[in-house]
């Protein structure tokens, strides 16, 4: 593969978990809840799905258990935030703290190992449409040769678009974030939609986490390495719109892919190169807001 193709290809790999987590976070964001806990939800999902895959050898069951445990944690965040009226920022931070503690504790108790737990017997995630990657320029690496998770992320994004913008449920969910009293006035409960949104976010985060660990065939403590936070950035950079998420996560993916690539060619300190994705994303977000600002001015 030429450099551009491999950059694009690698960008898609990097963006997949971000896109998944951000899509889930979109639900909570649209109900007006800032979901700081995505990172923790991802981590718990990564752990529980790879562990259950190891024990059950059944990817469906594994994903069920993985998503189930993250949704449980999401339900805890949601209940405490909504029904005990806690600050969503703090409960989110708490969830992150909790996930990083509990995964290590459990891993120690199950595998007597607090560090990396590898599952060499797990099958490699199959790669789909491999032949297309090199056949078509640009679009090839963009669309072909990725694992099932990538396609799942596209499908779920599309489904989310439909759910959020084309179903009564989606209207109510968005109304919750835009003006919760509108729901109350017609006898619906905003909290219910916020709760559901948290569950959905837990589900998506778990899938994103599962991708990280299942792909790797191992669990590494803190494997999410801040991706939950980046997912939050993606939501805002994507202007809280599904297509926006796609573009935003790709922007982050390509800048990270580029920074990975640049390490090999530029001999500047690695810290600078590691900062590239953040700076690039920052520039993108500023440019977008300038564009948006001028567009609104015209109207």
């Amino acid at each position, binding site marked *: 593969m030429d450099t551009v193709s491999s950059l694009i290809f690698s960008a898609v790999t990097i963006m997949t978990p971000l896109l998944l987590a951000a899509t889930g976070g979109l639900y909570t964001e649209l109900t007006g809840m800032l979901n700081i806990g995505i990172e923790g939800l991802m981590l718990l999902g990564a752990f529980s799905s790879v562990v259950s895959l190891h024990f059950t050898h059944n990817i469906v069951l594994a994903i069920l258990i993985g998503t189930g445990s993250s949704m449980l944690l999401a339900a805890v965040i949601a209940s*405490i935030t909504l*029904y005990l009226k*806690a600050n969503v920022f703090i409960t989110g931070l708490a969830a992150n703290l909790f996930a990083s503690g509990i995964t290590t504790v459990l891993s120690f108790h199950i595998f007597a190992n607090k560090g990396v737990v590898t599952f060499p017997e797990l099958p490699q995630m199959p790669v789909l449409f491999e032949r297309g990657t090199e056949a078509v320029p640009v679009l090839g690496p963009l669309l072909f040769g990725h694992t099932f998770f990538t396609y799942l992320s596209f499908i779920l994004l599309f489904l989310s678009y439909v759910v959020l913008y084309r179903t009564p449920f989606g209207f109510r969910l968005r109304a919750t974030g835009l003006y919760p009293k509108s729901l109350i006035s017609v006898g619906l409960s905003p909290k219910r939609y916020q709760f559901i949104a948290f569950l959905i976010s837990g589900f998506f985060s778990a899938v994103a986490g599962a991708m990280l660990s299942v792909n790797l065939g191992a669990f590494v403590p803190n494997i999410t390495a801040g991706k939950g936070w980046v997912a939050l950035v993606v939501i805002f950079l994507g202007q809280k719109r599904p297509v926006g998420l796609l573009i935003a996560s790709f922007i982050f993916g390509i800048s990270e892919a580029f920074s990975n690539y640049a390490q090999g060619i530029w001999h500047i300190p690695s810290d600078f190169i590691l900062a590239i994705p953040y700076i690039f994303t*920052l520039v993108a977000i*500023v440019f977008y807001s300038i564009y948006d*600002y001028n567009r609104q001015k015209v109207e």
Partner: protein
Amino acid sequence: MNKKIECYNPVIYMLRSMVGLIFIVFVSLVALVGFSYYLSETPDKTIYYFFNGPFLSLYDFGNMINMAVPLIIGGLGISLAFRSGSMNIGGEGQLYFGALIATLTVIALEPLGRAGAVIAIFVAMMSSGILAGISGVLRYRWNTNVLITSFLISNAVVLIVNYLITGPFDDPLTNLFSTQPIPETAELSYILPPSNLNTSLIVAVAAVFIIHALMYRSRTGFELRMYGDNPRFAKYAGVNVMYYQIMPMFVSGAMYALAGSLSIFGTYHATIKDFSSGMGWNALAVALIARYRPFAVIPAALFFAYIESGARSAMLYSDVTFELSSIVQATVFFLVSSVTLQRLGLKKRRI
């Protein structure tokens, strides 16, 4: 009749408001005990140290208070920023950057002695203030989301500071990743030796009064809160929007820098790589728990430091590792900001 039927009695009110706190502590205790029995071979020791550890020696006690100092200062800045609707979550970078700038400046100004230290802190506060202020300017100019820009800028800055510490400003005399130590004249004096508690505590307490006065005793504070409560109303009332989008960011950045520089001048005496990791977030949590009220920032920070040092004591003197402490901390965190729990004892009475 449409009139107040019961006067509020501050003492009863206070006692009742304790109920929630007690409940939170109780639940956390249950979590602690449960996990201790699960994780620790000496659960009784673990629990003992978790609660008493910080009070067993002056050293631990002083260090606990010292740990609260940057949290108070950073928390004050964040209280002010969040109260005005500026969601500055870039504290990690602002604190770290401020600390580095202060260190480098004070080293460069060594001949000036104490004055050099004051100038260094000022320079650091300006630098981090500007760093945070950028987000405010972007918001004012193009309505860019502050939450995200401050986060991204901070992440990038942390990496760049790391580079500066390990690269050009690395102290070749040490194997730690660290800058040169600051001149001794710039070091703050200790209050409670042998602990690290130092005179920065005084600054923190003074800052509480200053920020309180700024927020609740001045026109600026009045306008700032107005803008935070309802920007539309504030605009209607003729408040200067630009000022209240940029100033709170600047102040919170500067306060983070103050927290960082004082940690260096008082505790670390050189900018050590990652010394501040987590401080930015913790200060933010403190501000949230305090609900942005300057005086509540002190107990919130102390509470935070207490949990942290309790966990550390348990790690030091018993056999648990930091996973347990993060789980117990998480439990406390989950509950601590709950309005329902805080008002448990104040539950509305049926008449």
